């Protein structure tokens, strides 16, 4: 019983954490010098703003996902980080150095500190796999035996040791991206930028590429910024997510918190594909007032999702029907969305809502249905 009480306290802390999502995110930059710091970056193409005042801080060793629809400005944003795109105003700091005003020649050595991988891999077709991987070192002026030795080491790391002499055209998409990753790591960068790196790959290959990036992040302590339009990618790899829309970051925070409690409509809509939704045939029958049952959406996350919530609900608050939903793990934290139907009567409904809220859940009454139709 005593341990129960302790748990309850933690749940309450969690509830307040959910509420102050945005504030926490701002402090989550990590210790020491941030690898990337963007301050009010703006970039216009003609009359349209690709970036409309973006500020973002990324700490060492973090994996940050930048998600948005196509045209939201995420490509422009990631290109500002290695000077492929120049901001009109604002500051871009990489490892403490402002790069927004550097000339092309000054940017070149800096870009060697930043690896980049691409949706379409961008491997040079006329070069073998090892020559592709070794190219950043060639640019740096490393001797041929030394750069081929390093290329072999990297191909080992990405699991393509046998393909050194092959040409990219003979590789599968997943293998090409592995070469891309090896090439991006060749010059021992401090930061890896991933531009939709898995968007051209099938789901299974996507998983293996993301797992590889995760491993590299852990083994080398490499900071990774990835842009994507798929929440699935963010869920499986990122520590923190920034949602970008119309050139602005509309939401930012730890991935599990954003999953548990999205603040913006864009985030909610991007989450739609991978989070439980009320089944359409029930949604169609919902009435704002009339019905024998109220349909509730219950969002729970963190500690609150660990207890025997539904069993306790049945025991302490009364009958309910479990319509849809479940609890999944995001960044190792439970994040759940449940759709429940409870009797519409005032006392029953109120008791249920109070019970669930008391357990740290967010409850929304979506509407009412007749249970017999």
């Amino acid at each position, binding site marked *: 019983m005593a341990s129960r009480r302790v748990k309850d306290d933690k749940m309450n802390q969690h509830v307040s954490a959910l509420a102050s999502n945005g504030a926490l995110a701002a402090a989550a930059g990590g210790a020491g010098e941030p690898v990337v710091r963007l301050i009010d970056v703006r970039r216009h193409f003609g009359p349209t703003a690709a970036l409309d005042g973006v500020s973002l801080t990324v700490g060492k060793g973090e994996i940050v996902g930048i998600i948005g629809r196509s045209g939201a400005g995420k490509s422009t944003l990631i290109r500002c980080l*290695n000077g*492929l795109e120049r901001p009109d105003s604002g500051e871009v700091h990489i490892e403490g150095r402002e790069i927004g005003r550097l000339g092309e*020649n000054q*940017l*070149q*050595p*800096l*870009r*060697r500190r*930043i*690896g*980049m991988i*691409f949706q*379409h891999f*961008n*491997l*040079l*077709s*006329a*070069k073998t796999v090892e020559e592709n991987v070794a*190219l*950043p070192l*060639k*640019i*740096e002026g490393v001797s041929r035996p030394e750069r081929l030795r390093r290329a072999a080491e990297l191909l080992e790391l990405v699991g393509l040791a046998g393909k050194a002499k092959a*040409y*990219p*055209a*003979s590789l599968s998409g997943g293998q090409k991206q592995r070469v891309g990753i090896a*090439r*991006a790591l060749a*010059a021992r960068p401090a930061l890896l*930028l991933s531009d939709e790196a898995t968007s051209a790959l099938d789901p299974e290959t996507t998983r293996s590429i993301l797992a590889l990036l995760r491993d590299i992040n852990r083994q080398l302590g490499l900071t990774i910024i990835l842009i994507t339009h798929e929440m699935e990618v963010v869920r499986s790899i990122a520590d923190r997510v920034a949602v970008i829309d119309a050139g602005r970051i509309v939401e930012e925070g730890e991935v599990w918190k954003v999953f548990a409690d999205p603040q913006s409509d864009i985030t909610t809509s991007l989450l739609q594909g991978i989070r439980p939704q009320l089944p359409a045939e029930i949604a169609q029958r919902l009435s704002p007032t009339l019905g024998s049952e109220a349909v509730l959406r219950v969002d729970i996350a963190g500690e609150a999702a660990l207890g025997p919530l539904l069993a306790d609900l049945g025991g302490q608050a009364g009958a309910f029907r479990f319509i849809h939903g479940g609890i999944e793990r995001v960044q190792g934290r439970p994040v759940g969305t449940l759709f429940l139907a409870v009797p519409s009567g005032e006392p029953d409904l109120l008791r249920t809502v109070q019970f669930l809220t008391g357990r740290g859940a967010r409850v929304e009454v979506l509407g009412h249905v007749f249970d017999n139709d």
Partner: protein
Amino acid sequence: MSSTMIDLFLRSLWETVLMTGASGAISFVFGLPLGLALVVTDRGGIAQNLWVNRILGSIVNGFRAVPFIILLVALIPLTRLIAGTSIGTWAAIVPLSIAATPYYARIAEVSLREVDRGLIEAVRAMGGSRWTIVREVLVPEAMPGIVAGFTVTLVTLVGASAMAGAIGAGGLGDLAIRYGYQRFETSVMIAVVSVLIVMVCALQWAGDRLVARLDRRVA
């Protein structure tokens, strides 16, 4: 055919090979950089400079617009300056090269333009200079097209060299006109045309083989 005729034939063959080979080599050496310049200085190129681009483009178009036979005559003062004479095989190489260089530049330009911009971006992103992009991306990636285009240029030069007979350059084409056509020696005409066909086929075959060996874009 008499032995003098065979001698004449072999000399003409050599003159054609010489004119095609020399002006081909010169048009490659100048045409490829010119094609590169047209690509990199164009809008969105790695060394965008629209003024330079327009001027180069106009020069190329100007030379390409003039019919070769006119160019051959119009360039006589320049030919005399460079080759020391305005008559003969070496003299013909000057206008042939000047006509073939912009021609080849345009063909090389098309191949260079087809190089995926993503590859250029990838090498920029890894800190490559413009020169690195030219050396490691543009030229190697466009190489199959550059070689295929050079084959086309050589074949065109074989044909164009026939006109160089107008300034006494000799060559197979000239032989065919003077003996086969003007003197009604049909056997000479047939022999010349046959050799030209074989020559062009051999060039095309060798070019295609080389392209196939260079092209790594398909497995």
